[in-house]
């Protein structure tokens, strides 16, 4: 049943103060447009979970949306430190809960599959286990070594950006597929943003490609370029220049405030943001086509 609404409406309807939010996407398809909309709507006290907080959570923390972060690698990918989250933690202004990547993703996988927890093999690196009491160990009932367990993560809201979806929220994504599927199944509400809204027949032409079914989706929003400065494989490139620029911007509260005023509060929506980026940037991020070989499902 159609779930196509504006991103503004989706955030207003499905993201509440105090919610646990998982904005999915490992480096790829990071849902920046939704993050900015959450900032614009002034949400507070969110728990922000992501394997890599990335710039999206740095900006949301800077804007005062967050009470807590849950993460497994807190850096500006390929650049260096994630200054705002890092400073907030060092100053004791932000709660945090930390895992390894596999610990974080295993929590989501447990959440996605309706299990209370999932096991992982031991890694010998016990300092994190001592610091985070959510990480436990239990005996192997078959007589092997103890295993490490982590509890399910079931966010209130998952936000997932995809290349294409139909109006009912059946979504296909490709390239790096990180933890989008797991986040969508783990969460209570799922907000999708999509580069393209396609006819259901496009989705049905390649069912093995559909990673998120409409039945778990609360809202689907047509938001081209939603992942800039991250990227959408096949649609536009990662804006590495901006990742480098953020390293400078995030050095002072003042320049961050200025950035948010100009690029988040100062624009109505993603379409205005993209226009404001200008043609030079559009051109720089443009990507030439490279198509997959099609496959034959057969007419049965």
């Amino acid at each position, binding site marked *: 049943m159609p779930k196509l609404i504006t991103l503004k409406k989706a955030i207003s309807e499905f993201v509440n103060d105090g919610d646990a939010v998982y904005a999915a996407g490992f480096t790829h398809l990071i849902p920046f447009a939704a993050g900015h909309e959450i900032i614009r709507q002034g949400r507070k006290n969110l728990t922000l979970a992501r394997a890599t907080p990335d710039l999206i959570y740095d900006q949301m923390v800077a804007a005062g949306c967050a009470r807590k972060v849950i993460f497994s690698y807190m850096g500006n990918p390929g650049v260096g430190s994630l200054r705002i989250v890092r400073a907030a933690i060092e100053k004791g202004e932000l709660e945090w809960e930390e895992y390894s990547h596999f610990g974080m993703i295993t929590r989501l996988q447990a959440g996605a599959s309706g299990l209370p927890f999932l096991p992982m093999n031991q*890694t010998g690196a016990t300092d994190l286990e001592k610091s985070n009491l959510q990480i436990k160990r239990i005996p192997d009932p078959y007589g092997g070594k103890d295993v490490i367990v982590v509890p399910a993560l079931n966010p209130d809201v998952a936000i997932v950006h995809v290349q294409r979806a139909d109006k009912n929220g059946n979504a296909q994504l490709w390239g790096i*597929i990180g933890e989008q599927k797991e986040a969508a199944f783990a969460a209570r509400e799922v907000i999708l943003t999509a580069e393209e809204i396609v006819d259901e027949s496009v989705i049905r032409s390649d069912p093995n490609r559909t990673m998120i079914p409409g039945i778990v989706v609360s809202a689907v929003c047509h938001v081209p370029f939603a992942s800039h400065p991250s990227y959408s494989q096949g649609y536009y490139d990662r804006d590495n220049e901006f990742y480098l620029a953020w390293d400078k911007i995030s050095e002072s509260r003042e320049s961050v405030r200025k950035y948010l005023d100009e690029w988040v509060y100062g624009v109505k929506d993603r379409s205005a943001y993209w226009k404001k980026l200008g043609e030079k940037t559009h051109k720089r991020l443009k990507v030439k086509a490279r198509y997959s070989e099609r496959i034959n499902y057969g007419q049965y």
Partner: protein
Amino acid sequence: MPELKYSSAELMIVNAARLLKDGDVVFVGVGQPNLACNLAKRTHAPNLVMIYEAGVIGAEPERLPLSIGDPTLVSGALSVVSMYDIFANYLQRGNVDVGFMGGAQIDRYGNINATVIGGYEHPKVRLPGSGGSQEIAAWANRCYIMTPHQKRRFPEKVEFMTSAGFMGGGSDRENAGLRGGGMVGVVTDIGMMAPDKTGEMLLTALHPGKTVEEAKTNTGWDLKVAGQVKVTEPITKKELKILQEELDPTGIYLKGAA
């Protein structure tokens, strides 16, 4: 023959590349490890399979990847899978031969700290944390690290064990049920280290022109020297040319030390 000029980074990358065997399945990060792998692939290890924690298998990047999730890693790769699968089916299952590690500190027993300096609850310096390195260190068959040889980077004992090397030494690693050989090689800009039977890192090689004294002075523990310290083979013109002209023509990762 005029002597070749190269940076510390180039010296480490070339020596790291030589540690890879043809056919190895390598779990690799961006930056210097990526260059080392690509160099090996273009020289002695054409069948190297590069795996990235973002879920990419058999990447053949056409440009220098600038982040662990660069789209150039995906286009033309052999396979792209979810993060759960890459950690579970590839790493935890034992399908990875080599892991390249990073980190702010590495200690006498090859343990790595990439989490905090100055206490976990109220850190003086909050580092990025484990990412995938906790699992790479535990489950790859062989792990390597490249790092400039500086005393602060080589403390006697890491403040926080983000990733296990040989833990407290002896049979600690085995007892904890880890798989693989652990931290079997450290490449610095002075030489190379490798563990003895107890897991303690010894100096095993020096780069041409470097001395044992330099290595000892720049190590935070009383660095023992292996029975026979080798001298690494000089960098070749071909290796440097591939690095500088093909792999990183603008020198993003080749300049300086780390």
